[in-house]
């Protein structure tokens, strides 16, 4: 599946191979292609900084909340990461070593994330960490990763304004996700007025800021902007304001439990999204969230992100099938889950390109890595450690899936510090 990404070993490792372990290599299993056997990469050579890498195993960390309020969202990421690790192991692992994982619970609490991240890096000496979901948890662990030089694969679409050499952002940053969607809705739906709505924290606020700038650049109008505390469950007042302002588009970035309340109350208040008057465009509702909201309550809304479970391509079909086999037929896969799935694969590709588990070499090797086997299609790591990816618009169906109605022709360049949008 990742043949394309398993680049031949670099000169460094080949030299080591010739020098040290010719005899061992001769006795290697014949089934593993040459260049991927553990013997080709002596531990002393591929792990110069004392990470948890042995001749047969390499340890990585999984750091998500499995308890607390965020467990609702993060469960899918954990499942996807475990699936990717299992698949990689089935193919022979990374540099001939099986991946073993240590899972820690961030407990939806940012200091706990920092503590556990430190534990993974300092005590367990993991070679990389797949983890975090909210921006707050990432901000909490970031100094830890920079100080102890670890590698974090962060799956969530987020607000941008960050670029750390120690993080690979496998989700989209805000401009990637927002601008294409707004262009689409103005061009194909003729939208002129927008009502921005969000939960009250950094991601919705920054995203709406970018959205507002872009809307104003297009010469269109924002007629309202509003934030509600996380966990708020009563949206009737804002629904009334929306009815009064009659915007063409409700641009909603509501998250968590509030989502369910918002969409149920929107529907009950007689705003039928299938009529698209107003049209609802969101960047925060994936298939995962729809399970809680109920497909019938959000039918007709549009979501703008990079991945939908219904994407038709062989990579995705294989991924969906494998995911359901591992975690159950009734599972759904959202954008973040898919991005989390990319984490272990991108790390594997970086290790193989670098021919080493050393963090510094992985950092250096990461830009330019491409993955043709990603369920979302071809992706590539940018110099700024974000992914080039396509942005798509999906229309929510009653069965809880999205039907893809638009996708950008080219990969969208990640731009975490967008000029003119700050």
């Amino acid at each position, binding site marked *: 599946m990742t043949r394309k990404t398993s680049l031949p070993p670099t000169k460094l490792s080949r030299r080591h191979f010739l020098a040290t372990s010719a005899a061992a290599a001769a006795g290697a299993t014949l089934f593993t292609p040459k260049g991927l056997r553990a013997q080709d990469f002596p531990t002393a050579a591929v792990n110069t900084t004392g990470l948890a890498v042995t001749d047969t195993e390499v340890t990585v960390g999984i750091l998500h909340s499995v308890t607390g309020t965020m467990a609702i969202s993060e469960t899918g990421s954990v499942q996807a990461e475990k699936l990717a690790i299992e698949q990689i192991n089935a193919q022979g692992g990374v540099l001939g070593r099986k991946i073993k994982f240590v899972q820690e619970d961030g407990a939806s609490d*940012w200091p706990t994330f920092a503590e556990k991240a430190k*534990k993974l890096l300092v005590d367990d000496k993991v070679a990389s960490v797949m983890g975090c979901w909210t921006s*707050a948890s990432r901000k*909490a662990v*970031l*100094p830890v990763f920079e100080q102890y030089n670890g590698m974090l694969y962060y799956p969530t679409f987020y607000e941008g304004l960050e670029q750390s050499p120690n993080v690979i952002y496998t989700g989209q940053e805000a401009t990637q996700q927002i601008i294409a969607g707004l262009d689409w809705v103005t061009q194909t739906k003729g939208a002129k007025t927008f009502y921005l709505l969000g939960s009250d*924290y950094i991601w919705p606020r920054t995203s709406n800021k970018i959205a507002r700038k872009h809307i104003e650049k297009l010469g269109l109008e924002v007629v309202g902007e509003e934030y509600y505390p996380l966990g708020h469950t009563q949206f009737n007042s804002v629904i009334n304001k929306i009815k009064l302002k009659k915007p063409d588009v409700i641009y909603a970035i509501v998250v968590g439990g509030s989502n369910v309340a918002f969409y149920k109350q929107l529907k009950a208040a007689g705003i039928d999204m299938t009529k698209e008057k107003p049209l609802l465009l969101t960047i925060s509702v994936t298939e995962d969230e729809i399970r809680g909201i109920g497909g019938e309550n959000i039918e007709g809304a549009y979501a703008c992100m990079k991945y939908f479970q219904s994407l038709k391509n062989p990579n995705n079909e294989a991924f969906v099938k494998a995911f359901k086999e591992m975690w159950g037929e009734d599972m759904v896969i959202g954008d973040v889950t898919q991005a989390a799935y990319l984490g272990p694969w991108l790390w594997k590709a970086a290790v193989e390109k670098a021919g080493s588990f050393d963090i510094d070499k992985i950092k250096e090797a990461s830009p330019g890595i491409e993955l043709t086997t990603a369920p979302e299609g071809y992706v590539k790591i940018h110099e700024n450690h974000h992914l080039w990816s396509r942005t798509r618009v999906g229309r929510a169906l009653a069965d809880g899936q999205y039907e893809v109605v638009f996708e950008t022709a080219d990969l969208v360049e990640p731009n975490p510090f967008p000029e003119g949008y700050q």
Partner: protein
Amino acid sequence: MTMTSPATSAALTKAAPPRQGAFLDRTETMGAIALAVLIFVILPLALDPFRLNLFGKYLTYAFVAVGLVLCWGAGGILSLGQGVFFGLGGYALAMFLKLEASSPENTAIQSTPGIPDFMDWNQITELPFWWQPFHSLTFSILAVIAVPAFFAFVIGTAMFRRRVGGVYFSIITQAIAAILTILIIGQQGFTGGVNGITDLRTMKGWDIRSDEAKTILYFVNGGLLFACLALAQFVRRSKLGRILIAMRDREDRVRFSGYDVASFKIFVFCLGAAFAAIGGAMFTVQVGFMSPSFVGIVPSIEMVIFCAVGGRNSILGAVWGTLLVNWAKTLFSEAFPELWQLGLGALFIAVVLIFPDGLAGLWKTHVNPRIERLFPRRTTPTVPAE
């Protein structure tokens, strides 16, 4: 003690009214020495810098627990909003550290260099006036204690003068915690929002992230904790402490005896707030960030639990309880990430149902008698037995 009739006050007998005389009785001396040995000798020798830093973090919660023993155990005022003071103290120091980390050189890529990054992200182009004084370390350290204590004074005055007490006080403090959390999250341009104030690096040029700095901070933290313990013990031994206990058990009688009940309550509540604030500041500097998740209801209640597990009447017990619960939480959540919450919940119930006086109570009823039997007191009582 004179105004409290022992017959009417079952709780009082449990609380063991402090005797006149020595600053610490024998049990307390042993407990204090054991704690000092643990904190200053055993832990630093046995743990690597990472685990030591973790224990340093736990010890910052112990400040709150000690404050709670004074308010709740001695004064009968259960505050479910101690997180507010912990947070305010932590934020006061975090603001100073953030300003230092946001020097114009460090923040050159921002559209307005020299202000904290989160302000820049929120299109704030100038440091708000109330951030200005936090350029000064002296001011910040004063603010760490003064701001939460003043806040506690305002809350305490408003409530205790109106004789709000017991459960009502608890619920109102809880609401205050909720309000402050929403406010901090909502004003993210000025406060860092839900992310908090992160990425703190140096204090007057001293890198607080290095292992050496963390070890030093751990000892500073331990020293401050013992200073607070001594102060708390002093209060408990003083006449004030005895009035507090009398108030807890029979508030009306104390009032009828001519004491100004509200003032005593306000004082002890402010003291508890100040302790919590010191803990918050030490947390910030040791962990490297402060976030609104400490201000909310859940951490505030957890801190009450630490205190209850240790024994709500024992200041040393509170420290032991804090260390034990947190250590168990870390260990348990590393071993069974999906189950630790069950254990924690069961612990709360067990503490309340089975050993309401916590570890200190267990020690008193089970361990101490044995020690007494093994090592009978050498000093004879001053009053000869009949």
